[in-house]
């Protein structure tokens, strides 16, 4: 079942790159036109817009336009100040002093001060599923309106990196929202857009926030930070669940931008006049998850046997997604990307080795349950192919396709009798080891693994990047070698953009400041 995908993938990448530079470079040279509404055909809509509760992409994509945080990711996904003018870390790495920007206004006209920041952090520690980040906080101090100090009990070398998280973001809310229950805030932020009409399941409009105060010390936009300028009047997110319909909307010009297209749907837009299909990397990483507390995959050898039979190229083809092959749990070119030493557990295609391991483990045809869901076809299709690969090595496989809610609950709780499942991780790989921690333990249901525990302790206590990198290499090696998770691919995000939507910048999420409509 060998295949010629790498060449295909490379071609796709090259052509996307070529297409990207040409129109957008020239667009930047042109003078931006003002006004108009960008129509964005998205695959689904947010259920709520409380940043401290937001983990889904559709929620976060809106939230990043309406809210801002002290610290956020730049175009290279590194931490940069946004609402903070700057920050200082004490010698012992325990005290963080944020100088706040003055004159920043919420969309209701109120000025943002340290009281708002304090309220945000206090509320976060109570309601957010991401509150573990703040568990070690000793105290907050607000000596004046424009200074906010966080003091930790212990050294945390990556605290700032934790604050830049785009999942459960530390977006600053007005102090008036301090005691609002989870998911019930008024949507008021300091972002360049403000929330307009929102009809759930139908559409959501964000409008230009006239009160927005941009960062003047930057040249232009830089990821979620920098100087943001809004040229359009509004952006309308239309929620269109059918991929076919989203493609049709681009073909007919009803939408200016769309996302969440499979590779084949994207190909349909190839050569369509006025539309440019693109694939954005980095986006997510796909993994096969193995339940390490459920027989028979509680045996390391059996998990490893499954890893050995996993033919990555076929899994990628089956997923119908645009993906690149890479062994690491971080992205190439980033600080935590591991080298060849961690690559030997990737794409092994070794049926004989797998059979030997099974024999060693005393495997005797015990049923291995492969679970997936109908809601995400790439998960379902990846699992169907993996099941065939496992059968080829003599494993007894039961395919159990449920819906996403059941699948996700089972991944989370460990119940439902599954052994093998799959999912994609989008922010974790981008943000590094600290963001991986929960996931690494959670889905494979790892208990009492001292290799991981020790390495993580070392990681947080190391002020030096090289030491943290070494700790991460140990962690990654344990996860991959022990086959708690099997790395499948770096998955790109397939989107399409109308040619008259100018100034678009590729990023993990679609950003609408500094774009303009040439019509």
């Amino acid at each position, binding site marked *: 079942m060998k295949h010629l995908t790498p060449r295909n993938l490379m071609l796709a990448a090259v052509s996307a790159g070529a297409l990207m530079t040409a129109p957008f470079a020239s667009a930047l040279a042109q003078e931006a036109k003002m006004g108009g509404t960008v129509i964005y055909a998205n695959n689904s809509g947010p259920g709520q817009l409380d940043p401290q509760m937001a983990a889904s992409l559709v929620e976060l994509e809106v939230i990043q336009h309406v809210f801002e945080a002290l610290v956020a990711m730049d175009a290279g996904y590194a931490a940069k100040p946004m609402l903070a003018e700057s920050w200082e870390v004490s010698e012992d790495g325990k005290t963080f002093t944020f100088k706040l920007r003055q004159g920043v206004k919420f969309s209701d006209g109120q000025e943002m001060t340290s009281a708002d920041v304090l309220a945000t952090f206090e509320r976060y520690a109570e309601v957010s599923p991401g509150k573990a980040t703040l568990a070690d906080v000793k105290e907050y101090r607000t000596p004046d309106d424009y200074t906010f100090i966080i003091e930790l009990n212990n050294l945390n070398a990556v605290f700032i990196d934790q604050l830049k998280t785009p999942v459960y973001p530390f977006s600053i809310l007005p102090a008036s929202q301090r005691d609002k229950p989870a998911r019930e805030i008024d949507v008021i932020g300091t972002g360049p857009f403000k929330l307009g009409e929102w009809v759930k399941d139908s559409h959501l409009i964000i409008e230009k926030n006239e009160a927005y105060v941009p960062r003047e010390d930057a040249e232009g936009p830089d990821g979620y930070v920098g100087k943001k300028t809004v040229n359009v009047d509004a952006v309308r997110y239309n929620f269109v669940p059918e991929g*076919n319909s989203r493609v049709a909307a681009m073909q007919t010009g009803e939408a200016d931008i769309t996302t969440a297209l499979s590779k*084949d749907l994207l190909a349909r837009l190839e050569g369509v006049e006025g539309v440019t299909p693109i694939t954005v990397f980095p986006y997510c990483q796909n993994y096969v998850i193995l339940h390490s507390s459920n027989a028979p995959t509680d045996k390391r050898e059996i998990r490893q046997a499954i890893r050995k039979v996993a033919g990555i190229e076929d899994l990628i083809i089956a997923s119908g997604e645009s993906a690149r092959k890479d062994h690491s749990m971080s992205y190439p070119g980033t600080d935590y990307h591991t080298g060849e030493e961690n690559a030997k557990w990737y794409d092994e295609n070794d049926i004989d080795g797998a059979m030997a391991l099974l024999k060693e483990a005393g495997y005797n045809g015990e049923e291995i349950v492969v679970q997936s869901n*109908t*809601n995400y076809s790439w998960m*379902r299709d990846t699992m169907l*192919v993996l099941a065939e690969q496992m059968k080829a090595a003599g494993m007894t496989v039961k395919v159990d*396709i449920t819906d996403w809610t059941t699948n996700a609950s089972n991944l989370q709780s460990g119940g439902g009798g599954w052994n093998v499942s799959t999912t994609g991780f989008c922010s974790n790989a981008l943000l590094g080891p600290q963001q991986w921690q929960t996931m690494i333990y959670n889905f494979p249901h790892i208990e009492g693994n001292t290799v991981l525990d020790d390495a993580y302790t070392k990681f947080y206590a190391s002020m030096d990047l090289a030491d943290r990198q070494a700790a991460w290499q140990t962690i990654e090696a344990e996860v991959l070698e022990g086959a708690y998770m099997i790395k499948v691919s770096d998955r790109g995000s397939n989107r399409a953009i109308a040619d008259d939507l100018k100034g678009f910048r590729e990023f993990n999420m679609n950003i609408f400041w500094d774009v303009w409509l040439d019509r």
Partner: protein
Amino acid sequence: MTDQTAIQSPSTMTTTAPPPMPSRSRVLIRKLWRHRSFRLGAGIVLVIVVLALLAPFITDGSPNKMSLRDRFTPPSAEHPFGTDNFGRDIFTRVLYGARISLWIGFASAMLAAAGGAIVGMASAWFRRLDGIIMRIMDALLAFPAILLAIGINAALGPQVTSVIIALASAYVPRMARIVRAAALVIRELDYVDAARVSGAGATRIIFRHILPNCMAPLLVSVTFVFAYAILAEAALSFLGIGPPPPHPSWGNIIAEGRDYSVEAWWIMLFPGLAISLAALGTNLLGDGLRDVLDPRLKMEQ
């Protein structure tokens, strides 16, 4: 009723010559055979059933056999209906899919008929329960069948059996109404009265007299429910709550092919045609049955 009594007394069957009059069933069969749409419908259904049964002899592959090298092959001599995104042969999948889709259609129609017969009979016989039963049936009838099926199927989990139970429950109220109406008419007929007067028990009367006479309308509606069920299975699969993949039910094949509807049109086209053809055949067959068995029966299912 002559032929029925004859069957019950085999001794007389063997000793006496066949009755000079052609039996009722034979007349019916002849009538059916002369009915154009019945012939056509029965023909279509028969062909599909035979193809489904003989699937392993017609194609040599398994419906789930993947060959990623051959994905999205257009229809050709080797793959008459082309292949899908896994390189699975659509022709094989449609053939095996017939087994699942027909089984779902058949089983849910039968289950609905059985349920409908029980409820309808109970309603017609126990007059005191009639009001309650029929009000409940009316309420259930008020819900669109597909919504009921979605709810029940979701609760039972993704299995072929869940789909069958869900669809059957959705159609029980319609069946019950039909059976009740027929049973109420027959109940008042003289010979049933006579049987009652002569001391026959309720069970005996129901099974001997009323049920056989409800058969005609029941049979007719079974064919229509069969057709609806095939369509409903496809709709459920499309919504992602049909029989779980990799089951090659027709609805699943379409649902899995929808992302490739333009580039690999054959994935959606052939199972869609198969569904249409099966429903068409069953509807034609039902039309014929209705015309012959029960010319008065309204189309209100």
